[in-house]
């Protein structure tokens, strides 16, 4: 009797241990563009996520800068300095020169997938050892943060 129950349970485990892990399901729901994006973006250094193409303007879009700075101070400053010193995460100095704008915005808005799939993001995790948190930054807010980063890197 007991064995029978064990067998039934074992059977269930086998059935439910199919190829689909729950985590993968969750991700694909939250980030519908996730898997395709890997193929599209990763080689171009744009990272993984919704952000495919960012148009940068010169001169800087001034109205974005104070908004981006306010978000930085609320959600980013605890770990990122504006110089090149790493504290918890890397300093932001010259980040816009090292990374494509799409990569930066994907890292801000889609960090969990980036840390799972993007080789550059994974290198940073190995270096810093603390997973960058999802700070619930919208795409629009991330764009403002990007403009603030460009200003921090000396663009006009």
């Amino acid at each position, binding site marked *: *009797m007991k064995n*029978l*129950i064990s067998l*039934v*349970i074992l059977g*269930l*485990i086998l059935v*439910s241990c199919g190829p689909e*892990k*729950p*985590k993968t399901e969750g991700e694909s729901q939250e980030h519908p563009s996730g898997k395709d994006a890997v193929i599209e973006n990763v080689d171009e250094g744009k990272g993984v996520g919704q952000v495919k193409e960012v148009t940068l303007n010169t001169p800087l879009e001034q109205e974005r800068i104070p908004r981006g700075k306010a978000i930085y*101070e*609320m*959600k980013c*400053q*605890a*770990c990122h300095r504006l110089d090149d010193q790493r*504290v*918890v995460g890397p300093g932001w100095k010259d980040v816009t020169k090292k990374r494509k704008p799409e990569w930066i915005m994907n890292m801000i808005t889609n960090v969990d997938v980036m840390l799972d799939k993007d080789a550059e993001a994974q290198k940073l995790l190995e270096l810093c*050892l*603390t*997973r960058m*948190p*999802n*700070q*619930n*930054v919208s795409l629009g807010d991330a764009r403002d943060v990007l403009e603030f980063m460009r200003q921090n890197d000396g663009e006009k």
Partner: protein
Amino acid sequence: MKNKILIGTAGILAAFSIYSCKPKAPEDATTGDAASRVYVAPGKYDEFYNLVSGGFNGQLSVYGIPSGRLIKILPVFSVFPENGYGYSEETKPMLNTSHGFVPWDDLHHVAISTTKGEHDGRWVFANGNNTPRVARISLSSFRTEEILEIPNSGGNHSSPFITENTEYVIAGTRFSIPMGNKDVPISSYKENFKGSISFIKVDSSSGRMNIAFQLRTPGFNFDLSRAGKGPSHGWFFFSCYNTEQAYTLLEVNASQKDKDFIMAVNWKKAEEYIAQGKGTIEKANYAHNVYDDKKHSATSTILNEVKVLDITQFPDIVYFIPCPKSPHGTDVDPTGEYIVGSGKLAATMPVFSFTKIQNAIANKEFEGDFSGIPVIKYEAALHGEVKKPGLGPLHTEFDEKGNAYTSMFVSSEIVKWNVKTLEILDRVPTYYSIGHLSVPGGPTKKPHGKYVIAYNKITKDRYLPTGPELTQSAQLYDISGDKMQLLLDFPTTGEPHYAEAIPASLIQAKSLKIYKIEENEHPYAAKGEGQTKVERKGNEVHISMTAIRSHLTPDNIEGVNVGDDVFFHVTNIEQDWDVPHGFAVKGANNAEILIMPGETQTFKWKPLSSGVFPFYCTDFCSALHQEMSGYIRVSPAGSKTPLKFSTGKVENQESGAGK
């Protein structure tokens, strides 16, 4: 006489089914595939949330059904050092009452909000039985958002049952008492003691509660209640016991009469009287506590009056229906037509018909009056009796197929019967002495059915023994077929009384993940490390601190003296789901606080000796969690140590860490 009933009933039980004579060994009681029917594979979810009262732990626990897994314990009426509820400055006001801070209560019943008589998954209400209170808990944040004290009540048992559209939550007094806290001889019960039933209006969008009016009743005890629904919407039914009006040895003296009452209240009529300006305003002190999830703080307001309708002066609000022997449960079936009275000492179970009650009122089929209130003739209100259902009927729940399930405390079983025909269809033993029971959606117009869960009062040999005090035993039965089948035992915390189960699909997607840091309006919030600070105001030191994986800012604080009141206002600036931080200080005469993402909570500490005290994050948050810590220096009283604070600043290159 009593013995005769006992013997007679035992004989009938034996005739009905050998299983109900004596519980057999567990392996015989369950079906062969029971394990697979309650098994929820790793990574999969349960089908139902089961919101279970904690009884004497004053909390609400959340289980998954069918697995019986405990998912959460959330504090309502009792302090909870595990997350700081009742210890943090923000949550202390939640437990304020007209008697001051009361750290505990006895939570008996729950009611999930309904719209059109069906579960809407917005809130769950709970009663505090001892110091009469009603709480509202959000089913999005799973937190207690509001607690309202009930004045003129001697114990809030007949509560928090709700009307069809959650218009009202009910609070009926268990014990009658002299109104206005009058100092009178206990023996003057008949003269001075009154009952009161509070109709608490619920704001349909915010859920905020306020006492719309109280009904003042003759002095006796109100046990349980249920609102009408469908055709009986507009009515409320209460079981009453101790109509003998005894004030001592109730066990004997309140069990004298053959029949007590079910009290039928026409609350729509009461509403009309209130709208006409009837009723009197009486003085009464009671606390209303509300948690604001933007300010992340509770406020407690003492209110001082209540509107009262004395039912003896408005005789068309209330009618009494005789019901055998100290009725306990009074339950209304999904159609709203039938009202089941469970006389816990009776050999039969009456089922009343709402239509017949209305006809009896119209035709004045009264057998007399009690304190001027008409008593309807028993037979005139009766649909029929369930004959010999078992011993000690307590509560009845319903499925979607017209069946009722009644818990039998004394004979330790669940009895399934047909509401219309009153025929008994099945009975299963429970282990042991079932109290409440729950069918998912059982009290609504649209039961979800599928299972019945027994909350048993006696555990005995069901689990490994743990000394004199044992876990409380719950049991899950499949009711999808003709026969009820025992599937699972699961242990519960506290002492569950009533519980409700609701499909996960009505709650799961709405579950809150974080508090948005942008919306944080706490006066001491540090929304970013740039806003962290330490301020002295007399002998109060206020520290606005941030927490993020994995450091606290500031983490070096000096300039605090013995005798100061130190307030750590900690803001968790994470915005990711499931990343709370905790906070505790060595030697503090306080519990820790847990701070959810985007939230600010305050830990108060009065240092009693000088020295350097470590503080740290108590909720494992990252690989560098062990590093998430700091020091606060306390100087002797009256010292002039300068106030300073920092994070990551190394002053003495010789002895400090780093470069």
